């Protein structure tokens, strides 16, 4: 008989997950950070060309189970709306911050289409929190406290903080902030990655993704929590540009044993700059013939109304659980991985 109905994780992992969630909630309760929930279904979605989203159809009330009537009425006024499953709760949480919520956190699901593998499941659990008045270094301290606490009793030795530039130079000898096609290509060929030249061409951010994924990340955080800050400005995403070095951005990524666990920013609060970044990404989407995303005008409006200075970070809790339990695959920590969902 088929065993497909069984969980993909061991039952012990259900307990470990519950314990991790309880400790995390206690951590934030002790610091008076408010737990919030925001919608998984939204009218708009992030524009990041690297994130594929799930699209769903919302039938307006009274229209369910009446496909014929819908078609008839659609000609006069729409009976259904496109809704997106959120790739992260970031935009909604920023709207809460702009509305004056103060520091908040959320533990919830996020959805990313087309992502499946040893470290990816298209539906996953995310912990995201924002600290009003925190600079990025202050947030990094708090990340270290949370993770250190969760790993207490285990062999996580210390916390490393290293700049993206330093760590990139030390593993590749290349400067990540200044692109040189010649140097990058020569390095790729020397290190058995000659296919990078054809894949990356003259695309600096793509080179950084390629080389960082292959040559830097696997070496990061051997039994330590490693925080890499000062990402190149071309990989700024939703972070502010650093006020002392315009080539870098106030963004941090955290790693343990070569696994990417999370990503944080000193949050971009400039509505105009945010609008520009959205437009740029929408243009790339159009150019690459990717699914059309809908720019979040409500986020822009919230930023215009005023986002308090804050830092925020999102952590993949399934991957954290992988590390806490020494699991080799994300399937081993999920009740039902996508293939059995």
């Amino acid at each position, binding site marked *: 008989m088929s065993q497909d109905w069984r969980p993909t994780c061991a039952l012990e992992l259900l307990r470990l997950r519950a314990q991790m969630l309880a400790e995390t909630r206690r951590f934030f309760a002790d610091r008076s950070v408010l737990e919030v929930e925001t919608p998984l279904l939204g009218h708009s979605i992030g524009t*990041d060309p*690297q994130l594929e989203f799930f699209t769903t159809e919302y039938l307006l009330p009274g229209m369910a189970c009446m496909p014929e009537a819908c078609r008839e009425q659609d000609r006069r006024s729409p009976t259904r709306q496109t809704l997106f499953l959120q790739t992260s709760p970031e935009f909604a949480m920023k709207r809460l911050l702009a509305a004056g919520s103060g520091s908040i956190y959320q533990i919830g699901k996020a959805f990313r289409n*087309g*992502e*499946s*593998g*040893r*470290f*990816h499941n298209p539906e996953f659990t995310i912990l995201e929190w924002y600290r009003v008045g925190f600079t990025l270094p202050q947030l990094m301290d708090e990340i270290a406290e949370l993770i250190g606490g969760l790993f207490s009793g285990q062999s996580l030795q210390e916390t490393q903080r290293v700049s993206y530039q330093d760590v990139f130079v030390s593993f590749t000898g290349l400067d990540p902030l200044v692109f040189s096609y010649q140097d990058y290509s020569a390095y790729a060929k020397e290190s*058995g*990655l000659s*296919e*990078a030249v054809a*894949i990356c061409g003259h695309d600096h*951010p*793509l080179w*950084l*993704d*390629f080389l*960082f*994924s*292959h040559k830097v*990340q696997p070496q990061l955080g051997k039994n330590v929590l490693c925080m890499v800050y000062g990402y190149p400005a071309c*990989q700024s*995403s939703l972070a502010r540009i650093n006020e002392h070095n315009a080539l870098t951005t106030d963004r941090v*990524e955290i790693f343990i044993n070569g696994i*990417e666990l*999370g*990503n944080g920013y000193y949050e971009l609060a400039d509505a105009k700059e945010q609008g520009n970044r959205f437009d740029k990404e929408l243009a790339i989407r159009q150019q690459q013939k990717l699914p059309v995303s809908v720019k979040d005008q409500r986020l822009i409006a919230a930023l215009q109304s005023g986002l308090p200075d804050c830092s925020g970070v*999102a952590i*993949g809790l399934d991957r954290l659980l992988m590390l806490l339990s020494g699991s080799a695959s994300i399937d081993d920590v999920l009740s039902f991985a996508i293939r059995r969902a």
Partner: protein
Amino acid sequence: MAIYSTNEFKAGLKVMLDNDPCAIIENEFVKPGKGQAFNRVKIRNLKTGRVMERTFKSGESLEGADVVDVEMQYLYNDGQFRHFMVPDTFEQYQTDEKVVGEAGKWLKDQDSCTVTLWNDAPLAISPPNFVDLAITETDPGVRGDTSGGGGKPATLETGAVVRVPLFVQIGEVIRVDTRTGEYVSRVKE
């Protein structure tokens, strides 16, 4: 031939890479939270046997390779070529030592083996995991020795040399694991 995208790459899939037929061994999805998705693929060149790692941008594709494994009977060696036959159809194939490679030393006339065909031409030969072969040459055994403990070299009827326990004699048939080249047991006829 079909075209396969990175999301279809799985162990055993045969594809063309750098004009050579290859078999995918492992496919790992690599994606930074904010960044390009890649597939890091471990792949074996079926011509050379070499295993290499190659990265693809997710969504890239490769042409499938017309590679099939066929059970055949090994017929004979004419000095220049080895000859094989498909038992059901009596269709015959011949190939030189370069393709036969290491497998040659385990091939006994009439035994079956797996012939990998690429565009209907032999690409590689794999012997069965276990073969039974007679010993044609080995030092006389030491009386009283019944277990392993050291052992001695023995030449088999196909020319292969394996280490056998001291008690095994010329003319006896032994079973050998072709993956490790190690003696398994004596075979009673």
